[in-house]
């Protein structure tokens, strides 16, 4: 038997030689689609959109604050939270996709990755927008979180047992921890990507992949526990092990929709022409379809087990949402959040036509708002002592819901649009860029 030396490269040695690397980068840079006109936004190119977003956001927040003081603080805070958790879903989903792209060495998504990174970068502003929620809850000892009320903790045996987890100190610590993890990951991933635009340093891509490997479990735990703390604890009696996965599904879905909207807006401005085309929209549509089905599967699994086992402390959550005027939201969730996008996105034509997929993106964002409203809004009155538990349409208070959501998403959109113009529209020195440029779906 003869042994043959296989000449495996040592672990520290990169498989590609520096000369080959440089040749590849210069080939990408000399591509006729990589003109500065095509891959950067002129200063002020989207300032109109930014002003509209900022105006709507300021108006919405103002109305929410006034409504909170004059009409109903519970209702106003719930409406604000619906907006914040929709925005948080978009950013966390984008952060997840950036880390998945890095750790799987994805080629097709390079031309879209900077937009995913920009949306993920927004997580810091959403976290800032969460500070008022935490502050209001802590100072007033429970507006929507009745487990912060010391009297209730004394009275309720169940709440006393849950107090080691559900208490103000530990809650604040966890809130800070989520912020540290999310802001660290998103700012590093965007920072390295922008830095590699200038230097083309090979180490940056490896660093991003290394941290994505650690980042994905950290992301999974923080997302799940943040959804437990802020959404599931709205009703401290309720518990579901599927809850974190539900919020993750909503997050991944919302982020594909946002990136679709950004890409189509940039294309309509004459940017990224030939770099993002129907093949990339096709893949975004596939991801949108995937997470529509995933959300439906997880949502039904949670509902079905609770419905079948029929244990009072679990069914109360659904039971409350199937009466008192909230029944229509259940129909919106089953038909609007699953059936309609499933039957539309299953068509190849819808995924491959940018206009149609953009319409689907708008629809998915609207339905994500309804998803968060389905979770948060009914709790505004239940925890307020159940004096009044109807949605408040009759008294015309529904404008507060619209104001809260428009306010948060307007500010979110304005900052996002500003951030998009701050850097190149794609990572120009990514060695896999040529794959995304010539990307084609063979099925």
């Amino acid at each position, binding site marked *: 038997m003869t042994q043959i030396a296989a000449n495996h490269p040592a672990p520290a040695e990169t498989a590609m030689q520096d000369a080959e690397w440089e040749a590849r980068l210069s080939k990408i840079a000399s591509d006729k689609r990589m003109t500065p006109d095509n891959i950067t936004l002129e200063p002020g190119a989207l300032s109109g959109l930014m002003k509209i977003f900022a105006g709507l956001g300021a108006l919405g927040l103002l109305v929410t604050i006034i409504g909170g003081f004059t009409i109903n603080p519970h209702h106003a805070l719930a409406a604000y939270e619906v907006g914040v958790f929709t925005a948080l879903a978009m950013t966390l989903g984008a952060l997840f996709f950036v880390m998945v792209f890095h750790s799987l060495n994805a080629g097709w998504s390079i031309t879209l990755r900077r937009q995913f990174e920009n949306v993920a970068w927004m997580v810091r502003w959403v976290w800032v927008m969460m500070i008022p929620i935490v502050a209001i809850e802590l100072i007033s000892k429970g507006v929507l979180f009745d487990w912060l009320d010391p009297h209730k903790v004394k009275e309720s045996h169940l709440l006393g047992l849950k107090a080691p987890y559900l208490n103000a100190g530990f809650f604040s610590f966890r809130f800070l921890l989520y912020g540290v993890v999310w802001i660290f990951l998103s700012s590093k991933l965007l920072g390295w990507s922008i830095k590699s635009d200038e230097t083309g340093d090979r180490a940056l891509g490896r660093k991003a992949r290394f941290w994505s490997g650690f980042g994905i479990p950290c992301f999974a735990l923080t997302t799940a526990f943040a959804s437990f703390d802020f959404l599931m604890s709205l009703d401290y009696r309720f518990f579901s092990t599927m809850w974190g996965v539900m919020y993750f599904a909503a997050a991944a879905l919302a982020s594909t929709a946002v990136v679709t909207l950004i890409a189509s807006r940039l294309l309509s401005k004459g940017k990224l022409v030939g770099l993002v085309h129907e093949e990339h929209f096709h893949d975004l549509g596939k991801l949108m379809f995937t997470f529509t089905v995933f959300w439906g599967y997880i949502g*039904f699994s949670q509902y079905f087990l609770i*419905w079948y086992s*029929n244990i009072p402390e679990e069914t109360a959550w659904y039971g409350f949402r199937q009466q008192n005027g909230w029944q229509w939201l259940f129909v919106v969730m089953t038909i609007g959040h699953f059936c309609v996008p499933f039957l539309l996105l299953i068509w*190849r034509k819808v995924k491959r036509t940018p206009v149609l997929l953009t319409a689907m993106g708008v629809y998915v964002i609207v339905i994500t708002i309804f998803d968060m409203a389905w979770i948060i809004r009914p709790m505004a009155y239940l925890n307020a002592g159940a004096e009044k538990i109807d949605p408040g349409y009759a008294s015309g208070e529904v404008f507060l819901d619209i104001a809260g959501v428009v306010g948060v998403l307007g500010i979110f959109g304005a900052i996002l649009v500003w951030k998009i113009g701050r850097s190149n529209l794609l990572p120009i020195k990514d060695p896999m860029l040529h794959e995304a440029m010539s990307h*084609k779906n*063979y099925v």
Partner: protein
Amino acid sequence: MSAMINNLLSAVADYFPMVLRKPAPRFVTERGNRVYGLVAEFTETPKVFHAAEHVRDAGYSKWDVHTPFPIHDIESAMGIKTTKLPLMAGGAALTGVTVGALLQWGTTAILFPQVVQGKPMDAWQAFLPVTFELGILFTAFMCIFGMLALNGLPRFHHPLFSHARFCHASDDTFVIAIEAEDPNFDPVKTRELLEKIGGTHITLIEDED
């Protein structure tokens, strides 16, 4: 439409020669054997790719390219239309969902009403898992069996296997085979076309049935 019926009859005749005889061949050899078609060999991927484009542009419809490995985008070079399989699978999915829903609703709510676990007899929640699974099952069946049927599989023999050099198509050679049943097929002109586009070892294949 008539082409579809012809294909169907030909498939039935393949499997059940005692029931249905194959339609008379368009071309026979001097020994009276049915002519399957003409094959030509190519040695390089780009050459066979461009040759396929020429055959497509010459208007042939019943022909195929045999390669040792998948060639990206060969389907557009051959002018193959998108498959009808997704529509068939969608039809099967709707059938499965309908069957699953009606079977449960009909039996537990109408024909043999019985209270299970204190739930309403027509509770849609309880029917959904089986409805979903039956939709998946029918779709999967249609995908695999529909794919086999559209590909003309299973079959025990193919006329090309009688050509000794054809086995190189799984090793180092690309083969273009144009069938004699193609309306554009002409023994002389098709051979000239294959020569013009760079094919070598052009051979007439007989189908001994």
